[in-house]
């Protein structure tokens, strides 16, 4: 058991699974000798050699396509896309091919691949490096979309993603890569891929988030606890398929819900969760479901990115608004 940050947990999961299964290989830009720009693949080249740790030309469409080709042959490729904005060239391969081969061949050709990418802003990165991409992929039938929020889940969910027989988009919280550590055991045990995690129990309201925003949401719950507000905290973790049962069970108990997402608001997962709560949980609700999110703007460059990013202040303000609409007790 070691104290690891998220990037170390990703690295541990890759090492561990490559040792366990010789069909696992990694490919991406600068992932070999350089160890990846965030160092997620450090040590893999020395441990497993250049045939299984493939430094790719700067062609993200090719990376996705090659991962598809490898996966159809029973290999388990884990492709790294260096920054979230570089996922756009992969959309064609993912939507038209990876997500569809099983269905269109009625199970004959399958794509057990993982595409990992850092997701979201907050690190003052250059343009196109800070996008939140989950909405694109969560809309595509045939995919799984995972967004871990802490080191233990990054480790356990990445193992599960690699072992899953279908294509998984694995979006890692860029700004949390080195933000905090957590004890992670290299147990080789995967976490479930279609389950939300109730991270903290509470009675007054349910806070729902995933990925990097879980960190802000945790801090908001801490601050609200100081004011005597008891928040139940849910890490969605799996955006597709979405575990509405866990969220509904919580909201049935608390009667109040705020959803926090970094991606632009319109048509995002927060909207999907809110719609499900309206359809299936309306009679339990004391107040409307509220969303805290990025704005429907182009992701600002570094100097204004804090204007865009939801933070503790915005989450707490939205919760106070909710509690005014439906006071506790």
């Amino acid at each position, binding site marked *: 058991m070691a104290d690891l940050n998220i990037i170390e947990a990703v690295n541990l999961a890759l090492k561990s699974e490559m040792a366990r299964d010789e069909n696992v290989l990694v490919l991406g830009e600068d992932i070999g000798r350089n160890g990846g720009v965030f160092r997620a693949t450090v040590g893999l080249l020395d441990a497993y050699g250049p045939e299984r740790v493939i430094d790719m030309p700067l062609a993200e469409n090719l990376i996705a396509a090659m991962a598809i*080709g490898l996966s159809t042959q029973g290999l388990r490729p884990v492709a790294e896309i260096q920054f979230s904005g570089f996922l756009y060239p992969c959309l064609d391969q993912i939507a038209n091919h990876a997500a569809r081969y099983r269905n269109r061949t009625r199970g004959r050709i399958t794509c057990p691949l993982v595409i990992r990418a850092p997701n979201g802003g907050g690190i003052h990165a250059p343009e196109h490096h800070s996008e939140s991409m989950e909405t694109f992929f969560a809309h595509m039938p045939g995919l799984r979309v995972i967004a871990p929020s802490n080191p233990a889940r990054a480790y356990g969910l990445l193992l599960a993603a690699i072992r899953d027989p279908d294509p998984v988009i694995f979006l890692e919280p860029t700004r949390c890569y080195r933000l905090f550590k957590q004890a992670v055991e290299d147990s080789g045990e995967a976490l479930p891929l279609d389950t939300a995690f109730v991270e903290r129990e509470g009675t007054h309201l349910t806070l729902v988030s995933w990925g990097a925003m879980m960190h802000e949401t945790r801090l908001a719950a801490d601050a609200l606890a100081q004011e005597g507000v008891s928040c139940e905290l849910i890490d969605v973790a799996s955006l597709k398929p979405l575990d509405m049962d866990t969220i509904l069970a919580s909201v049935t108990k608390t009667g109040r819900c705020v959803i926090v997402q970094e991606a632009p608001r319109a048509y995002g997962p927060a909207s999907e969760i809110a719609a499900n709560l309206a359809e299936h949980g309306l009679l339990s609700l004391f107040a409307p479901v509220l969303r805290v999110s990025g704005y429907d703007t182009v992701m600002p460059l570094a100097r204004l990115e804090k204007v865009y990013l939801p933070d503790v202040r915005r989450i707490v303000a939205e919760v106070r608004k909710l509690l005014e609409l439906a006071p506790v007790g």
Partner: protein
Amino acid sequence: MSETSPSAETTVAAFDVRMTRFVDAAGTVLAPLPAFAQDPEELRRMYRVMVETRAIDRKAVALQRTGQLGTYASCLGQEAIGTATGIAMHADDVLIPAYRDYAAQFLRGVPAESTFLYWAGDERSMHFPEGTPSRHDFPFSVPIGTHIPQAIGVAYAFRLRKQPRVAVAACGDGATSRGDFYEAVSSAKVWNLPVVFLISNNQWAISLPRARQTGAQTLAQKAIAGGIPGEQVDGNDVIATRHVLERALAAARAGEGPRVIEAVTYRLHDHTTADDARRYRAEDELEDAWTRCPIKRLRACMATLGCWSVADEEELEAQAAARAEAVAQAYFAVQPEMPQAIFDSLYATLPTALGAQRAEVMTAPAPQTEH
């Protein structure tokens, strides 16, 4: 480095692109034939496949015209390339086709009724049968060229496992305008992969003629920038096409790496049955292209060599027509899938979250189905 003075220009690289043809449009043998083509039975076999493919293709068009099939992409005029591909490939090679490579698919065990079923809109058409070489082949690929870089991954898997297998990625001239094609060709030699990129240059990308797709003199030369051999072959000469393909496949299998083959042919039909080429293509161009028809050419060649008679031709015509009719009947006999099929191959195991949608489909009134 060069010993010349810094201001002098020298040629640092030079290339040529070769074209292979054994039989001309009139059926005249131009050069000693490769060994396989010296066996009359092999010539008859290739001829039979081309003629049967054309009969099935014509049947598909006829069904579409009479409302019994959806939009269909004819392979009229391009039968030699598919035939050569299907024969040249080994059983455990992997074909990554576009959507006009029917003859190759038939030879690899895809039932012709699956082709009809595909254009009728039934996913089961891509569940190629167990126990045939097609079992590991990719299905039809409609998005132009995006399947080509997937061949890099397939071939990489072969190399990683030290298997003597080759991936054949087939595409049209139109696909060579795409980044997907370039990304694959650019990277294939990096890992010296056993992959053959086969371009069926039928001169048209729907309504855009070859000359307006690129300023490149040949499509084969696009290989050269990727550091791999590129060559042209007369794609209406089935002997030449098979010869060039067998040579490329053997080289790839022997570890000599990838190459590009541009098979020069002509699309004698409209792009699909939803297209009318008369809007953009001159009639005399089409008439001229018919003089280079691959079937007519091999028949003339075989007649000259004395291994094909009028009686042989009549017998084959009857056989091919009967086969096409049998294919149509087999297609008509396939009942639509149950509605829940749209969920049942989406994931290895259907996520619980989708259970309610599947149940809704199963309890809904049966939709009107059609062929």
